[in-house]
């Protein structure tokens, strides 16, 4: 089975600034892949290269087995690549109705077939009742769903989503995101999703490519990335991290939180990383249990976090059920569940 999209050694510069450095990954047909990276890491440029609006100086872009760009040459024009684009804030055509936006990329737009396809897609995104409305009458989330329907209409080999929910407010984002993922799954579309939001990437995608400093530093399933990040930078980027100094020997490490099991063997002086949710209050402490004093407490409603200063002055963060939050100033005993990570 060929991949829907393959990037091989893609390198791109604007003038003398390298914006993409030897980027390679592939997207399996029918999967949702997220490209996760902080702002300004070249994610949007990557999408423009795949679409055909920029041509990479080096490397190859292959869509459904067909080479579309190679080493500074665009072999297939943007309009012939079969790539659906959902830009930031949707970018619906303001001069067209919702239905005409969706049918924009169809051949013979006035045929019964196109109309049926348009209706089908509007139903898929749950907006069949809005077909005759103007884009400006829709909420931001609805606009995003129309933009997705429009991108899916010509049956593209792959749909590219560029920070599609960045402009929505937090409350709306989760529900629109769920609806979009659901529509993508039901249409069995292949999607490449660019985002800087770790939660969004981890919760929506089958595979995640982490981009840091202009290159892809790790690819894998969301669980792999979170549990066994390839570097300290990835570990810190994909989730909250507690740092401790430690001495590793094989699969154990000794640090201020005691002797911990390591996911990967290491030796010598290391930085130990554990996630805040791995740190718990120890209600039956022993003499060797790590102890400390609560110096800050944050209540989030469903859960909360405490900062605990250990005897050696290192500070750890623990995520706890909200009803377990101790008051500031309390002395607590802690324990670590699961395996820790160690990086030299």
């Amino acid at each position: 089975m060929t991949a829907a999209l393959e990037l091989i050694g893609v390198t791109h510069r604007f003038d003398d600034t390298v914006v993409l450095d030897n980027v390679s990954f592939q997207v399996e047909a029918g999967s949702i892949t997220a490209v996760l990276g902080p702002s300004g890491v070249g994610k949007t440029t990557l999408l423009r290269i795949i679409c055909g609006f920029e041509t990479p100086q080096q490397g190859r872009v292959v869509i459904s087995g067909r080479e579309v760009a190679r080493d500074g040459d665009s072999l297939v024009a943007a309009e012939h690549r079969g790539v659906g684009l959902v830009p930031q804030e949707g970018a619906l055509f303001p001069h067209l109705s919702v239905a005409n936006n969706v049918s924009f990329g169809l051949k013979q737009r006035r045929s019964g077939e196109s109309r049926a396809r348009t209706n089908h897609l509007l139903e898929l995104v749950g907006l069949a009742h809005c077909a005759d409305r103007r884009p400006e009458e829709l909420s931001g989330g609805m606009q995003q769903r129309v933009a997705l329907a429009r991108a899916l209409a010509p049956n593209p080999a792959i749909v590219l989503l560029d920070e599609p929910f960045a402009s929505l407010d937090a409350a709306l984002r989760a529900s629109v995101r769920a609806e979009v993922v659901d529509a993508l799954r039901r249409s069995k579309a292949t999607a490449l999703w660019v985002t800087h939001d770790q939660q969004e990437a981890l919760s929506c995608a089958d595979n995640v490519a982490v981009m840091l400093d202009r290159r892809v530093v790790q690819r894998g399933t969301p669980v792999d990335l979170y549990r066994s990040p390839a570097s300290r930078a990835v570990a810190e980027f994909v989730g909250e991290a507690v740092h401790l100094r430690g001495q590793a020997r094989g699969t154990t490490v000794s640090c201020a939180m005691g002797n911990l099991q390591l996911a990967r063997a290491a030796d010598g002086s290391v930085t130990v990383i554990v996630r805040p949710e791995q740190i718990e209050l120890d209600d039956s402490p022993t003499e060797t249990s790590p102890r400390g004093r609560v110096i800050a407490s944050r209540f989030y409603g469903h859960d909360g976090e405490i900062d605990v200063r250990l005897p050696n002055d290192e500070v750890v963060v623990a995520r706890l059920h909200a009803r377990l939050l101790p008051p500031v100033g309390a002395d607590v005993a802690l324990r670590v569940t699961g395996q820790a990570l160690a990086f030299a």
Partner: protein
Amino acid sequence: MTRLLRAPVAIAAPAMLAAVVAIVPLVYLFDASLSRGVENAIREIFLARTATLVLRTLLLTFIVTVACAVVGTINAWLVVRSSLPLRPMWLMLLAMPLAIPTYLSAFAWVSWIPTVSGFLGASIVLTLASYPYVMLPVAAMLRGADPMLEDVARSLGASAPSALIRVTLRQIAPAIWAGSLLVALYVVSDFGAVAAMRLETFTWVIYGAYRAGFNPTRAATLALVLVAMALLLIVLERHFRSRVTQRLGAGTARSTVRRTTLTLVAPALVVALTSIGFGIGVPLVSSIRWTREASATTDWSAVFTTIMSSFWIGFLTGLATLLLALPVGILIARFKGRLADVTEGAVFVTHSLPGIVVALSVVYLGINLVRPLYQQVPLLVFGQVIIFLPLVVGAVRTSIEQSRLALEDVSRSLGVSRMATVFRVTIPLAIPGIAAGGALAVLGAMKELPTTLILRPTEVETLATSIWKYSVVSDFGAVGPYAVSLMLLAALPTALLSHVAVVKVAR
């Protein structure tokens, strides 16, 4: 981010044609001015009477520009920021002087108060005709400027007038500068008002040199000096326009209207009423009076024929200008590159060419290259296209630049080619700008005097030439019907223009 892809031929070819059309007059100017040698040309420039001419033109320009900056800014503030009721209607009325040609206003003033003729009259007429060039950009910028800044200034202890001056005036300063320089450009280029007021400025003297046996060297050399002045103004204008920035950060669109006290509104209202009263009132009332006085002797079928020729020439000019301006606007806004730069430069320089200069160069072109077309409608339209091309390109280009690039990218990714995207996305989104550009050209062509006087077929009279023909012999009774017709016809595109401006300002 520049587009790496070059423009399609269907865009590039007509744009190149437009660039060639735009520089034709300049080629002529240099050719004619240097035809008797460089020294002769230099001698013409340094004649004492040329110096007087320069000084007089500069003084007129300075006085009118300052007056327009004040009047235009006050009117803009009144229609955007004050709590005056019916503000869109006020804006429309205040923009109406754009519909009235300066020679018509000038004749109306002279027939009303004969002693005003001369420098004073020209200053009054040009101020009343040109302040909208300051008012419209300032109103747009006031609308776009963040009104919260004024509130912040107030909360920091500044009084209302002090906040107005220290914050708001500073915010809109670039728009005032840009608008004022545009006014200056139109004053140095104006032919109608100074001709009607018999004030010897550049344009009037150039016309005289042409009439008196067509002395091409003197006319062309003077025209070159005029073009140099205009070019300087337009370079400055562009510098200030580039500083016309919008607010920092998006923020939420809030009403920009501020509760205003009578002490602030009353003086502004006096200015506005004076602008409307003298700017529209004087020519309108005079024209109606003339028409009624002479109603018995008016040959209405001649008036009708003249209206039709004005309308057709205006329509043809509008259409031809749009057809050239559209590819140029698209090229400059969307396909940046060397070709776009060259085309932009050519059109930009053309903006500094006064109508009289373009007319002279097209005469030269007609006599030397396309004799059969000399004093035929196509050449007249050609001359007017050169004059209005920069304005229309500006309108088209601005509205294209305002639409999001992402929309065109989406269209391409949906399988629509670049040319089809231009037709299905770029142009439909730019319709307001295109309509405004077309209206500008039609309006301009109907008002345009020197080009029509010089290039029209001898048997064709337009409203502009008829008004001129009867006014110079003070036969105002005969002028009346033509004047009223021209104002009514010109009111249509002006209403469309100020509607576009209102929509922009009201957004």
